[in-house]
């Protein structure tokens, strides 16, 4: 029996399994691969009634318009800026919190803190933005009530661009810092306890053990999480900037996803918005591949 015959026999044997996969294939084709083909509309002057084939082919025209558009560069800058600040603020926060939790000896206290800090992760951005806007309200919010109590003036947090960026970052930390510790805590619990014992016999202090056992032990995980964040530096999902944002802070709050929504779906400039979206997808993909390649080079361990 040849290899091809053996394969054919296996396919026939498993025909019912392929049948089970049909809805799965249908989903990935219809909602992932068809839109990948559909992205070709970025190269046309898309007419919604004519479809992609019936629309005029305009080559790179939409991309040329994009690169000459000041608004595009503002949203590009905002996307990268908000993400780079997040790399500095939101990336180390869960790592530090995990290390602090790891030093707690009282199991009950540790579990209680963990339980509470996971909670915000399960709230939607609509709810979180509602909480934040309410707490920071200039007239009735808790924060400004306290500022006024001490004789200060109310701060308009949500409508001042500089404050807004700070609130955007803090809201992300508030929502995800607890959840982000899980992956680091798992890595911490996987560090070989014998290494700690050996270090103690050598007279290492807690600080020494942190520096020479704990941190090196979880470095691969830190690197993986860091690279994933770097790989996604070109993308911000829609909800957070849209829901926290308002017309007063569009100069910092408008990012690629909100821009594509506004230009494409509100102003129905489909092919131009598709071009912006395709540009983002391609750059993001290249970033992820590069991040993975770097990870392989540095640690011999990639994401995929």
């Amino acid at each position, binding site marked *: 029996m040849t290899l091809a015959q053996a394969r054919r026999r296996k*396919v026939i044997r498993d025909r*019912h*399994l392929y*049948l*089970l*996969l049909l*809805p*799965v294939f249908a*989903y990935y084709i*219809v909602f*992932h691969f068809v*839109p*990948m083909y*559909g*992205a070709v509309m970025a190269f046309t002057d898309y007419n919604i009634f004519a479809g992609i084939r019936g629309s005029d082919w305009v080559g790179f025209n939409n991309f040329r318009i994009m690169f000459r558009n000041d608004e595009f560069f503002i949203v590009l800058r905002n996307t990268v800026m908000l993400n780079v600040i997040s790399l500095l603020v939101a990336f180390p926060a869960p790592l530090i*919190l995990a290390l602090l939790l*790891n*030093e*707690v*000896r009282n199991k009950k*206290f540790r579990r209680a*803190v963990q*339980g*509470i*800090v*996971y*909670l915000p992760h*399960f*709230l939607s951005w*609509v709810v979180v*933005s*509602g909480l*934040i806007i*309410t707490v920071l309200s200039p007239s*009735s919010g*808790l924060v400004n*009530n306290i500022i006024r109590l001490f004789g200060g003036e109310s701060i308009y947090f949500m409508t001042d661009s500089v404050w807004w960026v700070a609130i955007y970052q803090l809201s992300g930390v*508030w929502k995800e*810092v607890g*959840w982000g510790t*899980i*992956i680091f805590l*798992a890595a*911490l619990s996987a*560090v070989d306890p014998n290494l*700690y014992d050996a270090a*103690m016999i050598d007279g290492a202090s807690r600080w020494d053990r942190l520096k020479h056992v704990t941190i090196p032990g979880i470095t691969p995980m830190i690197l993986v999480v860091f690279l994933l964040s770097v790989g996604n530096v070109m993308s911000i*999902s829609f*909800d957070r900037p849209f*829901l926290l944002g308002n017309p007063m802070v569009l100069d910092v709050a408008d990012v690629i996803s909100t821009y*594509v*929504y506004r230009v*494409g779906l509100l102003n129905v400039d489909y092919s131009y*918005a*598709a071009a912006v*979206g395709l540009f983002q*997808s391609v750059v*993001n*993909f290249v970033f*992820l591949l590069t991040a993975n390649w770097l990870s392989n080079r540095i640690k011999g361990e990639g994401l995929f």
Partner: protein
Amino acid sequence: MATRRDPPTAFDAFNAVLLTLVAVACLVPMLHVTALSFSSEGAILSGRVGLVPVGLQLRGYQTVFASAAMMRALVFTVYLTILGTSVNVMITALGAYPLAKPDLVGRRVIWLLILFTMFFSGGLIPVFMVVRALGLLDTVWALILPGTIATFNLILMKTYFSGIPASLAESARMDGASELAILMRIIVPLSTPIIATLALFYGVGHWSQFFQALIYIQDPDKYTLQLRLQQLITDGVGYGPTVVFGQAEDIPVESVKASAIMFVTAPVLIAFPFLQKHFVKGALIGSLKE
């Protein structure tokens, strides 16, 4: 890591205080908004409400519960969550079961193509065009089908199924059981932890879904709770309450907003202890590499 042999230090005290503050910071916004939801409008507007209600009243909640728009959104969102989660879990299981079989011909190629969709997408506009072309706009299916399978969840379930001994399925096959019967009668009953975890993942996802409802739904009868809440809080300057509750009433706007936030959050808070247990486990299965 500290051990029993380490003497308690100033750092331990500092750490305990710091972690307590972090935990408190996670709760304070919710406590403040809860206090607002029970406070009188006058007390709220004069900035006197902190973490305890001032001028206790229930008009905020009464307004929310009396609102036809909010109640319709509640019914629709519950319907969406139940229907969507059932579809998600079923189709994800249909994908995970065959793909967990190590000698399925073409498995590697299929898996690579599926993983590729995690890293590259055609973008929002082409997906919108597909949903539109299928005639799904303004139907509950627009909120379900484009996210039928979350690939991350498929990975979790496939990993779990791979851990079930192949001999169990094999002996059922010998007895002439169909693949669907094996999946339903043998694999699924052995997989309740992962199914519960994924149902919660998908369920919270549907409950929190905002963007899809924003772009695919125009019909006010099919607005989700999150969409209504967003209209109330952030849509326009002060028009929100009129959009949701109509013009006529003289409503205590600030306490209504706070009540609506708590109303939408309450189910998540109630489910939280349950969620936490399963989610943490699920997130850990996911961190194991293939």
